[in-house]
């Protein structure tokens, strides 16, 4: 069989003083290999016959070398399409409330005091049961989303045992997770989420230390929130039984140019409280939520700053990999049965559109307030032709020629439809990630910094 070098590879500059070693990253399998520069040259000339057998086997295994006649984009897209339509795990999001205490200045949602009614709760339960009876799933992950879901704690408490029971009846593993601002996340609430509601993780947001966070994540009455949220976090992670049932707290830090100076102080604060092994931490660039928030950050600046934050995290003792996994299923929206139900019973297949005035009725795929079958079939939902769209350059989606497509997947079909390329930081800093990963694999960053 004849072979060619895969289109989906990234090669770094030399990583040693003698300039003999480079890293080759095959994004189709997310495999990074450290290779001699002579090997790299052979690969670039497609002179595969001069490679050793073991080298050739390794390069074939990681799909850095592929059959010469393979249309790689088509192969990737068609595999993803097949996988997306045959997932054995289901996502189901319940937006239990449209209410939230906070008035974050980059949020696109419009909040009102509206929780799910009892009659809608009944219909959510019936809809969930219908979905699980139509297709066999091995596991289901229920996402509690808002607004601020804990402002409808009573709704969650009514729904959770029923949803669990339905999953159990069809022999489907049940799990859930919560996306919260953290303000009401008291230790006893955490305990109930982890022990009774099968929560596998809870995500809260801290946008830097107090001076940065309180500038942008204050309440609608302009009250500070950092101290309460941080105190809640410490109460939970300092419990003797934490993490209950392996339910970890994830701390997300939304970043734009206004608070980027607050990231390193936050990492230091978290490490001073010895949270390195107790929480997940990551930064996310603020992007458009039906608004112009994406204009607050230059993506290329963010991608350079992010490497500094990774170095700081390693220096502080956080232990994680900055190389992504492959991402064959870009988003729940492209899967056949994913649904989000809002507090009025409207159904969506995207978490970013409900409660956001910018997005109109064309994004609504159903309404189960009166009839639980009133939901559009998969083919009529937005974004579901994603894997066809990325195969055609005429659609103006850069993914068609992007080398990180296998590890990115295109990131957000909705954002592309909005005309805002959602390209992630790794598109701009993958080479730096590879080099930092190499350093991290060889030594201790802390010791290196202190030299």
């Amino acid at each position: 069989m004849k072979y060619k070098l895969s289109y989906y590879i990234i090669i770094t500059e030399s990583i040693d003083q003698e300039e003999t070693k480079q890293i080759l990253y095959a994004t189709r399998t997310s495999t990074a290999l450290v290779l001699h520069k002579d090997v790299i040259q052979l690969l670039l000339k497609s002179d595969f016959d001069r490679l050793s057998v073991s080298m050739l086997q390794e390069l074939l295994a990681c799909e850095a070398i592929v059959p010469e006649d393979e249309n790689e984009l088509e192969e990737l897209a068609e595999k993803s399409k097949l996988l997306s339509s045959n997932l054995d795990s289901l996502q189901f999001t319940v937006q239990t409330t449209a209410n939230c205490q906070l008035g974050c200045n980059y949020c696109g949602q419009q909040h009102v005091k509206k929780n799910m009614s009892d009659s809608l709760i009944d219909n959510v339960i019936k809809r969930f049961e219908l979905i699980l009876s139509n297709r066999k799933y091995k596991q289901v992950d229920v996402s509690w989303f808002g607004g601020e879901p804990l402002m409808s704690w009573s709704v969650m408490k009514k729904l959770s045992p029923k949803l669990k029971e339905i999953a159990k009846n069809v022999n489907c593993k049940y799990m859930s997770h919560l996306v919260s601002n953290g303000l009401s996340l008291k230790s006893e609430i955490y305990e109930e989420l982890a022990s009774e509601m099968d929560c596998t993780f809870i995500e809260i947001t801290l946008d830097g230390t107090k001076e940065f966070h309180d500038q942008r994540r204050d309440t609608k009455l302009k009250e500070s929130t950092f101290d309460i949220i941080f105190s809640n976090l410490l109460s939970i992670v300092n419990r003797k039984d934490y993490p209950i049932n392996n339910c970890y707290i994830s701390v997300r830090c939304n970043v734009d140019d206004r608070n980027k100076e607050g990231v390193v102080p936050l990492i230091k604060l978290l490490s001073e409280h010895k949270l390195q092994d107790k929480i997940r931490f990551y930064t996310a660039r603020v992007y458009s939520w039906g608004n112009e928030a994406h204009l607050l950050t230059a993506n290329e600046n963010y991608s350079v700053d992010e490497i500094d934050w990774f170095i700081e995290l390693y220096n502080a003792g956080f232990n994680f990999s900055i190389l992504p996994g492959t991402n064959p299923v870009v988003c729940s929206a492209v899967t056949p049965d994913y649904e989000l139900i809002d507090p009025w019973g409207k159904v969506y297949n995207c978490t970013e559109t409900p409660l956001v005035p910018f997005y109109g009725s064309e994004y609504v795929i159903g309404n189960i307030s009166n009839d639980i079958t009133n939901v559009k079939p998969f083919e009529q939902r937005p974004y579901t032709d994603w894997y066809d769209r990325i195969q055609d350059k005429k659609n103006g989606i850069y993914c068609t020629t992007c080398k990180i497509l296998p590890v990115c997947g295109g990131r957000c079909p909705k954002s592309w439809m909005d005309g805002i390329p959602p390209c992630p930081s790794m598109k701009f800093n993958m080479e730096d990630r590879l080099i930092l990963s190499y350093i991290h694999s060889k030594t201790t960053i802390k010791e290196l910094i202190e030299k």
Partner: protein
Amino acid sequence: MKNKNLKKLLNKMQVDETQSSGDFENLSKNLLDKVKGGKEAPKQTNYASCNASSCNSVAC
């Protein structure tokens, strides 16, 4: 290499680094061993595609 601090780190490391033996190193495997070999580190994610963090979940 776009990040200046990363460049400094690499330069510092190169003084100590000796050539590795063999044809190649599988960096991904080394990293996996290192991450798993540490303390009970929680899984980390490095990007979020949406505000609901469904990229942290099973389907994504």
